[in-house]
Each structure stands twice: as structure tokens, then as C-alpha cells.
């Protein structure tokens, strides 16, 4: 590496960070030998990766299934118009940019859909898992893997101008399911696609996650956040929910009873490529009746919505969704299962 060979102290570039006494040089050295896996490289993921690579975390693995689109540029800070023109996968484009920013960091791009079959491979060698996802299905999967492996992870989620974050250390803090036992069924939650999202809101939450990551990796455990943080940057509210007491108090299916329903593939979506042209069926194992009216209301602003007693049809960006009352959907316009899962998470929500 050019930088290491020029005779200067490799830690020199982090001098302003090391001069912050609570971190110090010892903290910086620990960062340099740490490994993280960032799950999802969209709005949250790019801010997270940017902070951690600049801060000198030794090995950063970035996992994402999607390709960059123009409407990502408003908030996904590592991408530019050239990346869109080149039709690059997000993980790969982020890695290229980050290598220019800090050649000391080992950056690994993995273009894949995180699922129950591959998550353990993606996170088992990491010291910390970071949430840059846009759906609760993957978050519960991360939570299962983290609890099973006894590995810390940091939850973060943003929608509109609001965001939440918490730091989860299995065995020490409550886990995601202790605090949020279940997510609303598919189609019942707003998503960034339906409710919109502000770039600064993402930056705030991702920055909370990043600073927690730095503390945790540097071994500054006393400084860690023990609350569920809820921020609304538009209405200027900042709430901190005390959750430490939930640890061991709730009969958590995951960290108390040891049920890993997402990791075992029991919960979550199931996809099949269909006979015919360019269509994937996304089926939901935990099917609950959808409220077509609500869903139609959210989708109407984004594309054409048609509805009858049996299904809701929604067309947007060259894709056609046929959504059924139990939450399953046929997505026309792609043969790619990862893309279909992504579209489902973005527009129906899971």
C-alpha cells in the first residue's frame, strides 16, 4: 500500500480522532484490528460505511443486493451519477469509492441478498453487525444470527423525518425482539418508497449507529447507549426509551427461549420464479389479511393502482405488482429473485 510505505505513522491520519481522550490511541489501534459487516448499503449503509472507513475500522464488509438508481442519489452519499450510468451494484460502487478514501482499510463488497442460508457466513467473522437495511424481515434475521452467535449488532431504521436506533449486545442488553416483538404484517407499514425519507434523518441515525460502533469496537463499553432512541428531525422531538429493564423480564422467543425462526427459514418471505415472462412470486410465510384500502392509499401517489375484490394491481417504474389478500405478490418485470424481494420490501413493506 502506497500510504504505508512512505515512512509515516499509519495512525497519523487519525490524529484528530485519537486526540479525543475517551477514544485515544489504544481505541484507535483496536479499531484497526476490528471487522464489521454492514447489512445493506443504501441510505443508512453508505453513511455507516463512510464513517467507519474514514475512522479506520480495519475490515469492512458491505453486503447489498441492489443496483444504484437515480432516486438513490438524494440520500445515499457514496454514489454519483456515473455509478447510475454504469449500472453498478451498490456494494461494489461503495467499495470503489471507499478505497479511494482510505486505502488502509480492507473493504469487501458482497453483492447478494441476505437470507437465512447465507447470513451466518456473512457475519460470523465480524466483531459487529450494522443495520443498513430497509425492512424488518432482514432485521429479525440479523437479530437471530447475532443472538445465536453472541455477537453485538446495532439497529437503525428511518422513515420520513423519523428514525430509531438501539445497540444490542446479546446476553447483556435486550435484543430486538425483546423490544419490538413483531413487525406489522406486510403491506401495513409505510416504507421509504411510500412515505418518503429525508437525507438528514438518515444521516442522524446512521451517525448514531456509527459512533456506537466506534465505541464498541474500541472497547469503550461504558459509553454505549442503553436506550431506544427515537428522533424526529422535522418536528424536533428526541425521545429516549429506557429498555434495559426488559432484559430477562420479557419471555423473548429469541434470546430467552432460543427460537431462531428467521434463521431457520420458518418466518420470512419465500420466492419462486414463475413460468412465463419475467415474473417472481413473493409469498409471505406469516400471512395475515391485508388491508387493501390502506395499501392502495399509500401506493396511489407512486403509480397506477387498480383494485378488485381479489387483488390489487400496482404499476411503477416498469414493474407490475399483483398483490393478493394474504400478502403474497407477483412482481412482473424481473426474473431476479433478489430484485423482487427488494421491490417487495420497498413498496409493500415487510
Amino acid at each position, binding site marked *: 500500500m502506497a500510504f504505508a510505505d512512505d515512512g509515516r505513522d499509519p495512525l497519523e491520519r487519525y490524529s484528530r480522532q485519537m486526540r479525543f481522550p475517551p477514544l485515544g490511541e489504544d481505541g484507535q489501534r483496536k479499531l484497526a484490528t476490528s471487522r464489521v459487516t454492514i447489512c445493506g448499503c443504501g441510505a443508512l449503509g453508505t453513511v455507516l460505511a463512510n464513517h467507519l472507513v474514514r475512522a479506520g475500522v480495519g475490515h469492512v464488509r458491505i453486503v447489498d443486493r441492489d443496483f444504484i438508481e437515480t432516486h438513490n442519489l438524494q440520500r445515499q452519499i457514496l454514489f454519483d451519477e456515473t455509478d447510475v450510468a454504469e449500472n453498478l451494484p451498490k456494494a461494489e460502487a461503495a467499495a470503489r469509492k471507499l478505497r479511494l478514501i482510505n486505502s488502509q482499510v480492507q473493504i469487501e463488497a458482497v453483492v447478494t441478498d441476505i437470507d437465512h442460508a447465507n447470513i451466518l457466513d456473512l457475519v460470523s467473522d465480524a466483531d459487529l453487525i450494522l443495520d443498513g437495511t430497509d425492512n424488518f424481515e432482514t432485521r429479525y434475521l440479523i437479530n437471530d444470527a447475532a443472538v445465536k452467535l453472541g455477537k453485538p449488532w446495532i439497529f437503525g431504521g428511518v422513515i420520513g423525518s423519523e428514525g430509531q436506533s438501539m445497540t444490542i449486545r446479546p446476553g447483556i442488553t435486550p435484543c430486538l425482539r425483546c423490544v419490538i416483538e413483531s413487525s406489522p404484517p406486510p403491506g401495513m407499514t409505510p416504507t421509504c418508497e411510500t412515505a418518503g425519507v429525508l437525507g438528514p434523518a438518515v444521516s442522524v441515525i446512521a451517525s448514531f449507529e456509527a459512533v456506537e460502533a466506534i465505541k464498541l469496537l474500541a472497547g469503550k463499553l461504558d459509553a454505549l447507549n442503553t436506550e431506544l432512541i427515537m428522533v424526529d428531525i422535522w418536528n424536533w422531538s428526541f425521545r429516549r426509551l429506557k429498555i434495559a429493564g426488559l432484559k430477562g423480564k420479557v419471555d423473548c422467543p429469541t434470546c430467552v427461549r432460543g427460537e431462531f425462526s428467521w434463521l431457520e427459514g420458518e418466518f420470512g418471505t419465500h420466492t419462486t420464479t*414463475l*413460468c*412465463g*415472462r419475467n*415474473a417472481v*412470486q413473493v409469498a409471505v410465510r406469516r400471512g395475515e389479511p391485508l388491508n387493501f384500502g390502506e395499501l392502495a392509499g399509500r401506493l396511489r401517489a407512486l403509480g397506477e393502482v387498480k383494485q*378488485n*375484490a*381479489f*387483488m390489487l394491481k400496482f404499476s411503477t417504474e416498469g414493474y407490475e405488482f*399483483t398483490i*393478493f*389478500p*394474504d400478502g*403474497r405478490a*407477483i412482481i412482473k418485470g424481473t426474473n431476479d429473485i433478489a430484485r423482487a424481494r427488494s421491490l417487495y420490501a420497498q413498496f409493500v413493506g415487510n
Partner: protein
Amino acid sequence: MSTTAVPIYLDNAATSFPKPEPVYLALDQFARTSLANPGRSGHRMAKEAERTIELARSALNRFFQGESANRWIFTLNCTDALNIAIKGSIQPGDHVITSDLEHNSVSRPLRRLEKDGVITLTRLESSEGYLDADQVRLALTPQTRLVALTHAVNVLGTVQPIEAIAAIVREAGALLLVDAAQSAGVVPINLKSTPIDLLAFPGHKALYGPTGTGVLYVGRRAKLRPWREGGTGGDSKSVLQPEELPFALEGGTPNALGIAGLAAGIEWVTRQGVEQNRLHEVALLQRVVDWVEAEGSGYGWNVAGRWDAASHVGALSLITPNLDDFHPQVISDILDTSFGIAVRSGLHCSPYIHQRIGSFPDGTVRLSPGPFNTEAHIDAFLEALQAISVGIL
């Protein structure tokens, strides 16, 4: 509109459900009392398991009038049986005749052998779901070693003139492999009067066994090379796979439990009478055909293939009015989610026939009633189609 608690199951061509009560009882009893390793050990339970399998072979031989019980091979499923038959009989340079009516379990192994330059292949073109025996006569060459054809088409339910074809193939000296996946148990097959060399079928369709059971009959003229070799429960000192049937083709512990269930299914079908189930299912399908003629065609529904109740099994494909609003997958999803009715849409693993009838690649909506379906089930299906036809637009 609400989905019923117990779905109306119209997907018996894939796997029959429910099974007759004696099958459940046999499975339960065998699992509790006799689920040992057949023949591998000399103790009482092993002997009992072995006996169950031997009785099942005898039952198959009686049912289909085969030459002897040891010519009945138990396989993993029909695909396994077809692969054993095709890959075990073919020599480089052979010519093989097949048709566009076949399931991928016949088409894919043959296409692979053709693509690899091992065989030459003639694929006969059907008309409205039927082959004519004369087409086979015209396609036969001196190099033809194998004619591999389905008896009843899984997509359309049409039954082929297998007796006439068998006579022609035998006269030419080639081997005839019949895929009886949709016919075994509902269309009489008499091996004494019909010269079929290789007969393959699953246990889990119209013979009412559980999944994981398949059968291959190996006639005297067929000499198959085994591709799965291993333990056969006897003659262990021999360093090679034994040559005598059924062991030559049955390496590995067989699915004794499944075979016990299959035997009970065969017995049940025998008591019912082979034609009985077919007549019941075809009568149910007649209601669908009548609806299409009277009302469905007005919405754009069509029956795929020629409807001839006398040469039909209990499977029927419907061509949907159009693909934009009535894509087959959308229809089967609506039937499932809004009406609690299970059918199968798509290509049914048989791309060539869909190409032939013009429903490729989106497929058709196939319904396949079984002996436990009633007129009320079919009427519920038709009411659903009516409601969808009116309500979808």
C-alpha cells in the same frame, strides 16, 4: 367471500390428496411395528419389512398382469424410474422416439443425451393432445432402440392409444417405455396383452401411496445397466452389484414405509375398480367442460386439447381469457387466497405441449379432481371462475 378452512384440493395430478383411510392406517401400523431395515438383518422385524415389500411387488404384478413379481423395481419417484429406464437402456448411436406430450422427466434426459451427441431424437407432434399410432410407425428406423411416450398427458389429461403403439413398437423390435404417471391406477394397463417393455409410474398419484415412492417394471427384453449401485441386503460377498432383478436396480435401503402405504393404496384401488375412479373424475370434469361451453367461453375461457370423456383422465387445463388480466398464476393465486381452492397453474414441467397448444410460456390453469372430490367442489370452483371472470376487470 371467504376461504374455507379446509382447501378444496383439485391438484391430484401432482399428488393425490387425501389418501384413502386404509393407506393412513397402513402407514401408521407399519411405522409402529415393522419399520426395520428390510432383508438387511435376519431378525423378525427385518423379515416383516422384507415381506411387506415382497407382497407389494406381488400386488403390483397382479394389478398390471406382469411377468413376475421380481421385475417390479421400487424407485424414489417416477422421475427416478424414468431415468433408470432411459439411461440404463441407451447405447451411443441409438435413435429414440418421443413426443411433445412429455413431462420434463422424459424430455430432459433425452434432450441431454441428444445434445451430448449420444442419441438422435425424433419428437412426434401431437394434435389436440393426441398422438396417432401411425406417427410412431412412420418414425421408426432400424436404429430406433427406444420409444419413450406418456400414457396420459399431465397437462391435458388426454390418454394415448398405447395398445396400438405397443404392437407397432414390438413388431419393429424397439423397446417401449411408457410414462404412466397420470394413468397407473385409473386407466387399465395389462402387460400380458400390451407389450410394454418398461413401465414407470409414481406411487403418490392415482395409486394413493405417499410421496417418495416410484415404480419401474422391467420386461424381459429390457437389459438395464444400473447407475445406482450399493447394498442390496444379500449376497454381500460379491464385489459387484448383483445382476438379478429386482436387486440389480435397487441399491440402497428402500422406502419400506412408503411401499407399505403404496401397497394399501393398490389394494384400495383394486377394490374400487380401476375404471371407477377415472369415471368419477371425468364426470366431475364434464361439469367444467359444460360450463366453458355454456358460459366460460363467453368470458374467453377455453379447454386445452380435445375433450373426449372416453379417452381422458381426471386432469384438465383451461386456457385463460387473456394474459394481462387473467394470467394463469394470478388465477391460481386468486383461487387459493380468495376461495380456498388448490389448482396448479404454469407449465406443469411440460414445456413442449404448451408450445404446441400456444400456451407457452405462461401456461394454463390445470384442475385435477380425485376420488374424494364431489360435485359441490367442482361447483364451488366454477362459481369462483364465474366471480373472477366478472370481477377481475
